[in-house]
């Protein structure tokens, strides 16, 4: 699969990454070469193979439904410079 300029722009939008116009051709080329490497997988028949998501037969560990975390809002927000009254500030979403 070879990606063109439009593909790269679409993927960058999906990933919420701003890409400078002049870098787009470079990404198109390198992403295409990675996909070419990846497509070596297509030579193998995997019809009857089950997908493996995790190295061990994993299951979700459960615990008692009790509070285990104390509120550390102030501690966590100390590292942010965009906090007011315990809330994170972002650009206005609604007019």
């Amino acid at each position, binding site marked *: 699969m070879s990606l063109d300029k439009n593909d790269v722009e679409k*993927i960058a939008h999906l990933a919420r990454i701003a890409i400078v116009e002049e870098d787009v051709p470079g990404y198109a080329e390198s992403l295409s*070469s*990675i996909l070419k490497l*990846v497509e070596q997988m297509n030579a193998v028949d995997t019809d009857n193979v089950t*997908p*493996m998501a995790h*190295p*061990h037969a994993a299951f979700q560990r459960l615990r008692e439904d009790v509070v285990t975390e104390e509120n550390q809002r102030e501690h966590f927000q100390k590292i942010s410079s965009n906090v007011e009254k315990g809330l994170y500030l972002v650009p206005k979403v609604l007019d």
Partner: protein
Amino acid sequence: MHNYTIAELTQGLKKGDFSSEELTKSFLQRIKKYDPELNSFITVSEDHALAQARTADELIAKGNGSILTGIPFAQKDIFCTNGIKTTCGSKMLDNFIAPYDATVIHNFNQAGSVMLGKTNMDEFAMGSSNETSFYGGVKNPWDILTVPGGSSGGSAAAVAARLAPAATGTDTGGSIRQPAALCGLTGVKPTYGRVSRYGMIAFASSLDQAGTFTQTAEDSALMLNVMSGFDEKDSTSVDKEVPDYTANLNQDLKGLKIGLPKEYFGEGLNADVAKIVEEAIAEYKKMGAEIIDISLPNSHLSVPAYYVIAPAECSSNLSRFDGVRFGYRCEDPKDLEDMYKRSRGEGFGEEVKRRIMIGAYVLSAGYYDAYYLKAQKIRHLISDDFKAAFEKVDVIMGPTSPEVAFKAGEKTDDPVSMYLSDIYTIATNLAGLPGMSVPCGFSNKMPVGLQIIGNYFDESRLLNVAHQYQQTTDWHQQMPEAFK
């Protein structure tokens, strides 16, 4: 004392030959002298280290020290350290002071160890040469024109130059074993789930595993005794008892079955590296091991499958870096989407953006089955290859890396050629198996690593196999002339 192993330093501290404060000062001194050239540390935590050293000295004086009490370590800058900058090698986290300790850091603190600082690394652990770091590349102490490997390149260079007796690393596709090989160190990646991932900044959660850089296998055992174990804060941590990893080190190797996969000795392997690895295997034969030819037929698919699975997981994990709560935020965003996009566009480096985009693509509607599901199926085939092999053999051996350290800049323009430097290490991560690299010789004066892969939770055997080799060879004791 910079050349001592952890085991020797522990003895020295106990006997009172030197204090932890003296030891720590001497390593800080070496960092000041040599690191401006190597660039192996992002942060040197001098005051913190000296305070820890003084506390350790008090513990030791009262007879309350444990084996790692007072021993200085370098920690990869991927582990969150409460109150000390944690960057993960990225501009995105250049201003990030973690509000808590990773479990690995917590375990070292509990043991009374000293943290010298945080080591340089490829950005978000994505790279095989340490050249993607926002803080610049790291030089290989064996030849400063070459790379130390990656992503844990700073940890490897720091230990190789003896700026720290040992260091931690993380290994998602070879990020401990490959730099250990390129820098002439013993590097261990334990079984997936053996060491807690809590507070270790996530790259690919089903592959990431923390481990060690040391001079000797014995030192790795000492570190893993402290690092390993169940942690309820990590949902994939395995609840299984941790054996004393030093207990089996001295067992002899008579009758040990070593599998040599033919796929690890084929095309693409440097001839001199092949010869040196074969000599190491001959040494094992002398020790009474039985050499068995095996096949891991799907090995050639490990790099392709990895470059779907790892980017897919990274695109999801790194979506948390959005400029809202912590990390880099762009100047004057015009709206929320502009803030997300420019914070990420400006905060991430090129390789990280590339991998996030590959991940977003292979997970996107219409491509999921062809890429992501396919890769997960291939992952199963690769895992089954190992399962079949371990029915016949106790350990698998081969080269860690197809070549010795390459020149800085040599592969930076061609991501695929960079990816292929992990061709022998990636399959182990896909299967979740433990693996290590052991120094086994030199090619053109550059270190070569022997890779040893074990069955699930068989770290004790790996360390035993490496330790026995280190009793009859001295490759692991060599160090680069310029840093003696």
